[in-house]
């Protein structure tokens, strides 16, 4: 009976609110980054409306920063689109890894939730899944909260950019890294994660040392680590038979 109920409940309002609440705690982690993107978009000559449209529709900070770095007049349509495609490739395996959650939802709940998928909401949702709760509403609520925070911060950065003046190396920018670091703790499943994680880190560092930029260290490291873990798991289950 538990199973039957489990299958029906795939996207609940309660889940959405749990996602919103879980994410409010980490919005401070993304706020400085959003401010910077707002400041840079103002410096590159985007109007407030254009800056808000970009943040709302693209919603991917690193690709926005890179696109703004190569901004010109007229706007670099092809270069900006290609930058977004390459840098955001890291999001594709995230969607795939959420399959156990997404397989049970349809329509806008599926494709709309994917539209706002972002690194931090992904990490929070994986932690939630590993705690035994499978509700796509959580992912949607978490992602939407990140989105609202992102658009508001970009707008504030655009309007108050001249007043803010945060130097690039300021410790506040460590907040984004710290958010992901802290999220590693609930994602950690125990010693069996050690080998794939070590391989992922080593391969990412090696690819970076060779001189390849984003997204190649992330993609190479992630796939190498995951493949190592998968190979070990399949060998173990083969032995058990």
């Amino acid at each position, binding site marked *: 009976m538990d199973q039957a109920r489990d299958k029906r409940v795939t996207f609940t309002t309660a889940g959405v609110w749990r996602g919103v609440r879980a994410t409010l705690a980490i919005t401070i982690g993304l706020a400085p980054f959003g401010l910077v993107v707002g400041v840079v978009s103002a410096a590159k000559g985007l109007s407030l409306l*254009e800056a808000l449209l970009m943040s709302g529709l693209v919603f991917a900070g690193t690709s926005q920063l890179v696109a703004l770095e190569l901004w010109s007049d007229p706007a670099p349509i092809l270069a900006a689109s290609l930058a977004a495609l390459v840098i955001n490739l890291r*999001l*594709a395996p995230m969607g*795939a890894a959420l399959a156990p959650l997404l397989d049970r939802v349809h329509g806008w709940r599926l494709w709309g939730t994917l539209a706002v998928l972002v690194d931090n909401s992904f990490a929070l949702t994986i932690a939630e899944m590993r705690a035994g709760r499978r509700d796509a509403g959580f992912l949607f609520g978490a992602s939407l909260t990140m989105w609202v925070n992102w658009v508001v911060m970009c707008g504030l950065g655009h309007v108050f950019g001249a007043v803010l003046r945060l130097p690039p190396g300021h410790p506040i920018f460590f907040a984004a*890294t*710290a958010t992901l670091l802290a999220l590693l*703790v609930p994602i950690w499943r125990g010693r069996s994660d050690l080998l794939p994680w070590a391989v992922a880190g080593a391969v990412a560092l090696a690819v970076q040392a060779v001189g390849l930029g984003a997204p190649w260290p992330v993609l190479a490291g992630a796939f190498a680590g995951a493949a190592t873990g998968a190979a070990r798991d*399949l060998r173990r289950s083969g032995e058990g038979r």
Partner: protein
Amino acid sequence: MMLRWDVLAAILGMAVASYLCRAGGYAVLRVTRPPRFVQAMLQHLPGAIFIAFLAPALAQSGWSAWAAAAATIATQAAFGRLALSIAAGVGALWLLRYSVSAW
């Protein structure tokens, strides 16, 4: 408020590219039955993605960032409060940088 057609086109191009990335990985998985190896990989992808993302970022910063990273993880392991852990990491980095420059 100003909205130029070339800027709008660039934004829409970026938006379409980003959506293809967000939905594409799952869309492929939904229409194909992935082999067992791929399914096993998906179990390991989340942690591997974040490690592969964080390792190069930390390697580019100095020892103070590594120390701040340790403080963040230790705080999260001890208290399980994300906002507190983020504040601990930023605070640790700020203190380390400040004390080093003062010294």
